[in-house]
């Protein structure tokens, strides 16, 4: 055994962790090598010193402090326990409330669909009407806030129309015989979605 090998196993040797054969080799090397012997003695001293470090006694009140803090935490937990038990109920109420508000909120897709559902009840496309029968009626969702314009043969006749509870009504007078075109532009103020209805009808003149 050389010095390098000896020193690599010195710790285990000092702590009695080597097998018999290795221990015998180490002892033989110790006998013939004064340097390693000095190293061994230093190692023994360190080992003895470290093994001789006595435990430090914890402060007397430590356990009391720990238990006191735990009791305080327990009391707090118990005080909060009824609230904790009700937590699922609170959570449910909250979820229902949020869901309700969410459902009440006009979804853009739904509004868009609503706007496009707008239809003219009268006149129907290219149908023939007598002048006094011509009524342009658009039925909208009454609870919604719409902005609209009606054009008759390209002329803005919005001011002549009425908008009552979601129904737009136009009763044009003095229409000439022939084809006429009515255009309604509707915009939902909340969602910003819009729709356009374009109808052509034939009016019998001279009525």
């Amino acid at each position, binding site marked *: 055994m050389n010095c390098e090998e000896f020193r690599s196993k010195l710790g285990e040797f000092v702590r009695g962790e080597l097998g018999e054969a290795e221990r015998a080799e180490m002892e033989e090397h110790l006998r013939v090598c004064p340097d390693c012997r000095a190293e061994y003695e230093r190692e023994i001293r360190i080992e003895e*010193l470290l093994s001789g470090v006595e435990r430090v006694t914890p402060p007397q009140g430590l356990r009391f402090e720990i238990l006191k803090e735990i009791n305080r935490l327990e009391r707090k937990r118990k005080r909060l326990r009824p609230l904790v038990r009700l937590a699922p109920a609170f959570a449910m109420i909250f979820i229902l409330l949020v869901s309700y508000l969410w459902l009440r909120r006009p979804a853009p897709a739904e509004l868009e669909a609503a706007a496009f559902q707008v239809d003219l009840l009268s006149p129907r496309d290219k149908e023939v009407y007598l002048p006094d029968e011509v009524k342009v009626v658009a039925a909208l969702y009454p609870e919604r806030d719409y902005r609209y314009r009606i054009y008759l043969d390209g002329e803005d006749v919005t001011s002549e129309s009425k908008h009552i509870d979601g129904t737009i009504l136009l009763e044009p007078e003095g229409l000439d015989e022939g084809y006429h075109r009515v255009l309604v532009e509707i915009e939902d103020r909340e969602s910003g979605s819009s729709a356009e209805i374009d109808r052509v009808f034939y009016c019998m003149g001279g009525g």
Partner: protein
Amino acid sequence: MKDEERKKLLIELLDRYEERIFNLIYWKIGDYEEAKDLTQDVFIKAYKALDRFRGESSYYTWLYRIAINHTNRAMKKKSLLKFFSLDRPESRSAYYDPEPDEGEKWKEWALKAIKERIPSLPEKYREVIILYYFDGRSYEEIAEILGISMGTVKSRLSRGRDLLSLWLRGSEKVGRRSE
């Protein structure tokens, strides 16, 4: 786990490990008052986490891990690390140096010097030295607590001891020079 059961278990853990955990922390940071506060934190943390303890390791391994992690975090936070050096007057033992053949007198001096030196050993060596020598843990147990291999435990132990030994020799020389 019911409150009563949890409290009973905590008291068992305190009976078994209060002193050991306190020592582990004390030797890691070298401050008695701080060790008291940190030990208190460790047991309270353990108490709160008892329901989550899954029994994948033993209670002591689990508790030691909490203690080591918590202390390391606290040390990092408060920069509690103390650096003792041969040149600094607070390392008083370095200035008193009986000869090794003075027997008990030398031993007394060296023991004091070693104790002063331990908190300033590099963390990785300090932990294994504390667990091995002061807590009497086996290589296997230390490996499990620290999550390292047994080979690493042995090499760190050896290196830590070498450092202490070198330091002791160094302080002997300083002591002699100062005479």
